[in-house]
C-alpha cells in the first residue's frame, strides 16, 4: 500500500513536469500562429487514468489556453485528425461546466462543428466514459 502511494506521488510529479513542458511548447506554437498544432500538443498525453484533480486541472488550463486561441473552427477541425475528436469533446464539456461566459461561447462554437463532423457517437463516448476522465 505504502509502495503504491509512493509510486503515485512519483507519477504525479512526472505528470506535472510534463504538463509544464507542454505549456511552454504551446506558448511558442501560439506565437508562431499555429493554433491547431498547439491544440494537438495540449490534447496529447492528457492524464486520463489518474484520479488526481491537480493533474487534471493543470492539463485543463493548458488545453483551455489552446482552445481559446482557435479562431477558425472549420479550418481547425479540417486539419485535426479524427483520433483527437473524442478527447476534444471531453474537454469541451469540461469547458461548458466552468460556466465562464467566454469559455462557454467558444466551447459551444466548437461543439457545434465537432458534432457535425464526429457525430453523436462522439458525444456518447465522452459522456459515458467514467474511467478516462479529463
Amino acid at each position, binding site marked *: 500500500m505504502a509502495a503504491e502511494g509512493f509510486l503515485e506521488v512519483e507519477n504525479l510529479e512526472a505528470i506535472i513536469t510534463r504538463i509544464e513542458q507542454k505549456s511552454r511548447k504551446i506558448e511558442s506554437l501560439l506565437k508562431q500562429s499555429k493554433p491547431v498544432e498547439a491544440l494537438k500538443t495540449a490534447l496529447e498525453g492528457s492524464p486520463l487514468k489518474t484520479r488526481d484533480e491537480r493533474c487534471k486541472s493543470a492539463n485543463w488550463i493548458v488545453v483551455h489556453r489552446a482552445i481559446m486561441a482557435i479562431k477558425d473552427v472549420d479550418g481547425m477541425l479540417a486539419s485535426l485528425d479524427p483520433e483527437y475528436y*473524442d478527447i476534444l469533446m471531453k474537454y469541451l464539456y469540461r469547458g461548458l461546466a466552468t460556466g465562464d461566459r467566454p469559455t*462557454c*461561447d467558444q466551447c*459551444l*462554437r466548437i461543439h*457545434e462543428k465537432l*458534432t*457535425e463532423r*464526429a*457525430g*453523436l*457517437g*462522439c458525444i*456518447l*463516448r465522452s459522456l*459515458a*466514459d*467514467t*474511467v*478516462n476522465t479529463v
Partner: protein
Amino acid sequence: MAAVAVHQFAQSITCHAWSPDQTMVALCPNNNEVHIYKFIKDRWEKLHVLYKHDQIISGIDWSIRSNKIVTVSHDRNSYVWNQEASEWVPTLVILRLNRAALCVQWSPKENKFAVGSGAKTVCVCYYEQENNWWVSKLIRKKHNSSVTGVAWHPNNILLATTSTDGKCRVFSTFIKGVDPRDSGAGSSNELKFGEQIAQLDLSFTWAFGVKWSPSGNTLAYAGHNSMIYFIEDVESSPSAQTVAFRDLPLRDVLFVSERMLIGVGFDYNPMVFAADETGLWSFVKFLDEKKTTQSSSKYGSQFSEAFGKLYGQSKQGASNDTVEPSRPRGGAHENCITCIVPLRKGGETVVKRFSTSGLDGKLVIWELDNYIDLLQ
C-alpha cells in the same frame, strides 16, 4: 435491400420471435401478453394470446425443432409453452430470481435455455423427464450488475453474456446427464457448470446485444458508448477489435455471415459492419436507404432541436430562425430498435432475411439479396 414489409402491431414491441416455418410471429405489445399473429391472405391475423405473466414480457424465443415457446418477464418467472391441439399450454419454470428476468434464448440443441436477469445472475434451465418440469441452475456471483444479453455458442455448451457492469463474459454450461461427454465441443467438455472461460473488459459502460458468429469463432457485443467490439478465438487466445461509430449506440446485433454483422439500436436505422480480407472490422453503411436523404439535415437526430436552441443562445443577439425543428426521419423505424431476429431457411449458413422490432411498435422485415451491393 431494404425493408420489404413493415407492419404496425402495437404502440411498442418489447421482443418478438418467429415460428419454425416462419409463418407466425409471437410478440409482446409492451404488456403482460404474448400475441401470436399469422399472415393469412393479405393481412396479419391474431391467432392466440398467451396470457399467464403478471408483468411486462422481456424475452421470447421459439424453438425451431421442438416448436416450444419460452417467455420471461419482469414478474421474475418464465413459462415454456407447448402447443397441444390448438391451444398453447404453459409450464411454469421456477427461476428462483428476486429481480426481473430480462432476456432468454434456447440453446442450439434446444435441450436448455438461458435467462439473463436483473438479479446479477444467469439461469440455465433444462428439462427433467422423471419430474416433468424444467429445472433452473444459476450462475451466481459472477456479474456485478444486470445481465442484458445471453448468446449460445453453436457447441451448445458455451454461453456468452453482457451486463450493465460493462463486461462480456463466457461461461461453460455443461450439465451432467443433459450434455453428453463427447458432444464434440472439444476442451469445453471438461469444464464444470458455471466456470468462467473469459471476461472481456473492453467497455466502460453498459454492454448489450451479444452474439456469436455462425461458426462460433467471433463474438460481438455493443457498448452504450457507440462502440462495437469483435473478439476472435475467445476460448484459446482472444484478440479484440473495437469499432467506434459516429451515431447513436446499438442495442442488439446479428451476424448475417462470418464476415458481416447488422447492428440495431438508438439510431432507428440498422447499421452494416463488415470485415475485410485481413479480418479488420469497420462500419460500412446504413441499411435503410432513406437515411441518406435525411442525413443532409443539420444533425440528423431527435436531439437537433435541443442542440439548435443551445447553439442559438450562444450567438448573442442572433435570432433563432436558423434553428431547424426536429422532424420524422423517414426510415422504416421511427424509434429505438431493440430486437433483431434472423429469418433463416433450413440449411442456410448466411442470413438473407431478418426482422427488427422496437419502441415504435413496428415489425420490419428486411431482405439482403445482394451482398456485393452492401459492400459498395
